[in-house]
C-alpha cells in the first residue's frame, strides 16, 4: 500500500510540475510545436495534398533513385499499389512544392526532435518494437534516427548508419574494450552481433536483453547444455543468472569467468561463514593446496546435473 501511495504521489507531483511549467513558460516548446504541427498537418492531409514521388524526383532525383535499394520501397505496394513513398514519411508535399521548396512546409527528420521522429517511425514499426518508448534508448532520447538512416545507410538489412558493432560502440565506449580482452565473445570477428543478445528497441528484461524462446536467459540459445532443467540445479544459475560467475562480453579470465581462480569464485559463496545462506560451505578436506584447489576438476557439471547432487557427473 505504501508503495502504491508513493507511486501515486510521484505521478501527481510530476503532473503538477508539468502543469506549472506549461503555464509559466509557453514559449519553451516552440520547436516542438512547429514540428508537432507539421506532423499533425501531415496526418490530417487529404489525398489531394499528396503529389507523388515523381514530383519529388524533379528536385530530389538522387534520393528517389537510391530509394529503390531501400526496403521502404515496398510501401509503394501497399494500398493496392496506390501507396506512396516519400510522402508516407515526410507528409503531404503539396505545400512544399507550391512554395518552391520551402523546407518548413515539409517534415524534416533531421530537424525534428527524437520523440517526434520516433512517433513517425513507430506508426508503422510499433508492432515490431512495442517496448521502444520505455526502453533505455527511448528514455535517453536516442531515437530511431540516431542509429538508422533511411537515405544514407551503410547496412542495408536494418538501414543502420554504421554496421554493428561499430554503431553500438559509438556510444557504448565502455563496452568496446571488453571485446578486445583475451577471452571474449566473437563480436568484432563477426560471428555474433550485439543484437543477438540485446534488443536495441527494448524488451521487458533489464539491459534490453533478449530471452530464449522458452523464456530462459538468452545465453542458453547457444549454450544449450546449460538450459536444463536438471534434477540437481546449481541454484544461482537459475535465480541470479549467468553473470553471477561470467562476464558476458569479455574477460581476461578463461571461460569468461569473473574471477581468475576458480576456487576464489566458488568459495565466495561456499564458505563456512554461511549462517544466512543455503549454499553449503567448503568441506574440510578440500585443501586448497592439493588436488582439490581446482574445484571444477571434480565438480565438472557445475551448471547442473541429473545424476549427482555434487555435480560430479
Amino acid at each position, binding site marked *: 500500500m505504501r508503495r502504491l501511495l*508513493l507511486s501515486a504521489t510521484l505521478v501527481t507531483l510530476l*503532473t503538477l510540475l508539468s502543469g506549472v*511549467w506549461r503555464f509559466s513558460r509557453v514559449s519553451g516548446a516552440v520547436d516542438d510545436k512547429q514540428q*508537432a504541427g507539421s506532423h499533425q498537418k501531415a496526418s490530417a492531409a487529404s489525398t489531394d495534398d499528396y503529389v507523388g514521388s515523381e514530383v519529388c524526383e524533379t528536385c530530389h532525383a538522387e534520393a528517389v533513385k537510391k530509394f529503390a535499394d531501400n526496403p521502404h520501397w*515496398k510501401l509503394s*505496394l*501497399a494500398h493496392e499499389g496506390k501507396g506512396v513513398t516519400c510522402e508516407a514519411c515526410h507528409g503531404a508535399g503539396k505545400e512544399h512544392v507550391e512554395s518552391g521548396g520551402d523546407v518548413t512546409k515539409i517534415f524534416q527528420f533531421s530537424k525534428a526532435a527524437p520523440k517526434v521522429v520516433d512517433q513517425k517511425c513507430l506508426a508503422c514499426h510499433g*508492432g515490431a518494437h*512495442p517496448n521502444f*518508448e*520505455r526502453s533505455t534508448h527511448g*528514455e*535517453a532520447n*536516442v531515437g530511431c534516427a540516431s542509429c538508422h538512416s533511411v537515405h544514407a545507410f551503410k547496412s*542495408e538489412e536494418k538501414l543502420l548508419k554504421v554496421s554493428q558493432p561499430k554503431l553500438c*560502440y*559509438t*556510444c557504448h565506449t*565502455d563496452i*568496446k*574494450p571488453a571485446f*578486445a580482452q*583475451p577471452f571474449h565473445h566473437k563480436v568484432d570477428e563477426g*560471428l555474433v552481433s550485439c543484437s543477438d543478445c540485446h534488443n536495441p528497441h527494448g524488451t*521487458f528484461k533489464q539491459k534490453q536483453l533478449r530471452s530464449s*524462446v522458452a*523464456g*530462459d536467459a538468452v545465453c542458453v540459445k*547457444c549454450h544449450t*547444455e546449460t538450459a*536444463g532443467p*536438471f534434477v*540437481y540445479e546449481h*541454484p544461482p544459475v*537459475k535465480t*541470479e543468472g549467468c553473470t553471477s560467475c561470467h562476464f558476458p562480453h569479455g574477460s*581476461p579470465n578463461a571461460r569468461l569467468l569473473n574471477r*581468475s*581462480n576458480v*576456487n*576464489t569464485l566458488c*568459495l*565466495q*559463496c561456499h564458505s*563456512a*561463514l554461511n549462517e544466512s*545462506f*543455503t549454499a553449503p560451505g*567448503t*568441506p*574440510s*578436506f*578440500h585443501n586448497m593446496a*592439493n588436488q582439490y584447489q581446482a574445484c*571444477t576438476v*571434480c565438480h*565438472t557439471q557445475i551448471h547442473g546435473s541429473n*545424476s549427482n547432487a555434487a555435480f*560430479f*557427473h
Partner: protein
Amino acid sequence: MTSAFSLLSGLSGLRSDISRTGLRAMAAIGLAVAVGTMARAQQAPPQAPPQAPAPASEEKVIGGYVTHQSLELGGHIVEQSGSGPMYNTLVNIHSGPRILSQSLTMRAKDPSGAKFFDNLSTSSFGYGGDPINVTVLNISKGRLYDFRGSFRRNRQYFDYNLLANPLIPPNSNPFVPALSSPHLFNTVRRVTDLNLTLAPLSRLSARFGYNHNINQGPSYSSVHVGTDALLLQNWRNSTDTWTAGVDWKPVPRTTFSYDQFITYYKGDTNWQLAGLNYLLSNGTPVSLGVNLSSVWGTPCSSPFNSNGTVNPNCNAYLAYQRYEPIRTLFPTEQFRFQTSSMSRLTMNGRLLYNDTTSNGKNFYELFNGFSSRSSMRQSITTGSSKAQRVNVNGDFGVTWQVTPKLSVSDVYDYWYYRQSGTNVFTETDYTGSSMLVPPGNPTSGTTTDYQILNQKTNANTITSAWDVTARARLSIGYRYRSRTITQLTDVVPIHENWGLFGAALRPTPQLRINLNFDGMYADNAFTRISPRQLQHYRVRATYQPRPWLSFSGSANIMESRNNVTNVNHLDHNRSFSFGTSIAPGEKWSLDMSYGYSDIYSTTLLCYASTPPPPTAGTAPPICVSAGTPYKSDGYYNQPTQYGSFGVVSSPLKRFHVNAGYRISAVNGATTFMNVRQVNGSLQSYFQSPYAGVAWDLEQQWTWKADYNFYGYGEGLPIGPTLPRNFHGNIITLAVRYAF
C-alpha cells in the same frame, strides 16, 4: 598423461608444421596471384571497403535484376611462435588458401515483373579453414514473403592451461605436471537460423522459423572416483527449434501475435577414460589420474613399484565410461499484443507459458580400477532421471502521454517457474583390493531422489518522463521487485526497492549527454555475493562539432554490497572510456579509443590449505570448527586499460591503406589460497597491430595485402605449467573481383 594431453594439444604442433611449410607455398601462391592480377592492371575506380556489397560503377542488369557480385580469394601465411595452444585459443588462424568473402545482391529492376523475388542478398566469409564462417541469405518478394537465413560456424579451440589445472608441486617425484588444461576443448558450433514471414505487409501475416544449433567435437573432462581421472569427452549436444506464429493487425497501430515454439534438445555427450599412461605389472594399461604427486601422496603414497609398474593397490583407473543421453522438449506458447491506437496511450503485453520435460532414460556409468577408500574394484551404475519445469511469464507495459511534455509509464513483470526433478539409480559395486585381481563380490543398491527449485518474481516499474524543453528530458522512477525462491524446504523471500533517475540533455544539436542513476536496496540476498545495496551511475556523452568529427565518452560506475556480518562483500565495476572519429573526407580517417576499467571485490571466506599461503589469516571459530582454519578477504582487482587507433587513407586514387593498433592490458591481483597459484591472465596484455593495402588494379579487380600481429604475454611466475605467451604474424593476400 603427457601423451594423453598430446592427443589434442599435438594438433597445434601439427599446425605449426603446416604453418612452416605453408609459409613458402602461400608466399608463392600470393605472389603468383599478385603478379597475375597486376598484369591486368589498368584504369579502375576505387572499390568498396572489405566485406561491403560491391557497388559497381554502372548498373549491371541480369535477367531483370540489378546485380552486384564480389568474390575475394586469397589466403593466409602464418608464422607463430610461443605457446601454440594459447595461440589457437585466442586466434586460431592458420596458413592456407581461403574464400575470404563473397557477396551477391539482386534487385528487381521492375518489381512487378519479378516472379520469385524482388530482392536477394547473400554474403559469406571465412570459408576454407578459418575458425569462423558465416553466411547470410535474405530474399523477399514485395507483399508475399520475406525470408532471412544465416549459418554460423565457429571452431572453439580452448587450452588455457591454468584452468582446472591441479598445479602439481614441482618437488613431486616423479614430477608430471599437467601441461594442458584437463578441460581442453576442440569443438565446433554450427548455428542455422531460418525465418520466413508470409504476407509481411498484410493485416494477417504468418511467421515460420527454424533454428538448429549443434556443438560437437572432442574435449577433455575429469571425474572423481578415488582419484581424478582425465576423460575424453566426446561433446555433442544440439537443439532444434521450430517456430510458427501469426500477426493480426485488426486496426491500424494494433497488433495481436501468437507464437508456438517447439525446442528439442539432444544431449549425446559421452565420456571415456583417457590418460592410460602407465602399466600394471601384468602389462595392463592404467591411469593414475591428473593428481599424481608424491607431495600430496596422491593417488596413493606409493604409486609405483620399484620396476616402474603401477602399484595395483593404488587409486587408479583401468576403464571408465559414461553415457547419459538427455532428451528435452520445450513446448512454448506466447501471446503478445501491442496497441497505440488510443489517443495518448500505448500499451503492450506478453504472456508466455512453457512446460519443459527433460528425460535421461539410459544413464550408464562404468568404473573399473581401484578406489581404496571404499575398497571398490568396479562399479556399474544405471538408471534414469526426469526433470520438469513450468515457466509462466507475463509482462505488461503501458505509457500514458499525460501532456505533450509529460508521460508516465508502468511495466509489470511476472515470472514464475517451478521445476522438479527425480531420478532412480541402481549402483552395483564390486569389492577388491588389487587391480591385478578381477572384481570381487557385488553389492547392489537402488537410490531415488527428488528435488525442487521454484522462483516467483513480481516486479513493477513506474517511470515518469518530463520533457522540460526540446533539449532536456528528465525521468524519475521507482521499481519494486519481490522474489521468493524455494529450494526443497528452504524459502528465501527477497524484497527490492529501486530508485531510478535519468536525464537526457541536448544543450546543443551537436552535444548529447545522458545521465542515469539506479539505486537499490534489498532486505535479503540469495547468495553471499548477491547485492543488498547497489548504486549504478552512468554518464554518456557524444559531441559532433562537425559532420566528420565526433567525440564520445562514458563513465559507468556500479557499486554493490552485501555487507552483512561474516560476509562483507564489496564489489565495484568502474569504467571510464573515450572515443573519437575523424573523417574529414575520402582521403583519410582516424579512429581512436581509450578505456580504463577497474573491477574489484572482496568477500570474507575461509578455507583449508597446506601449506598456507603467506596471506592466510586466522579464521573465526565457526570456520575453524568446520575444518577451514584460514581466512581470506577474497581480494580481487582487475584494472584493465584498453587503447586503439585506426587510420584509413587513400593517398592515391587507386591505392588504399589502413593501419592500426589495439591493446588490452590488465595488471590485476588476487588473494591466493594456494602457494602455487599465479596471476596468469590477470596480469597480461593482448595486442594486435595491423596494416593493410588495397590496390585497384582495374575496374573490377583489387589486390589486397593485410598484416596482423597478435601478441599475448603474461607476467611472471608462469606456474608449474608451460608458458602461455605467444606471438603470431599473419599475412593475408587476396584478390577481389567485383562484377
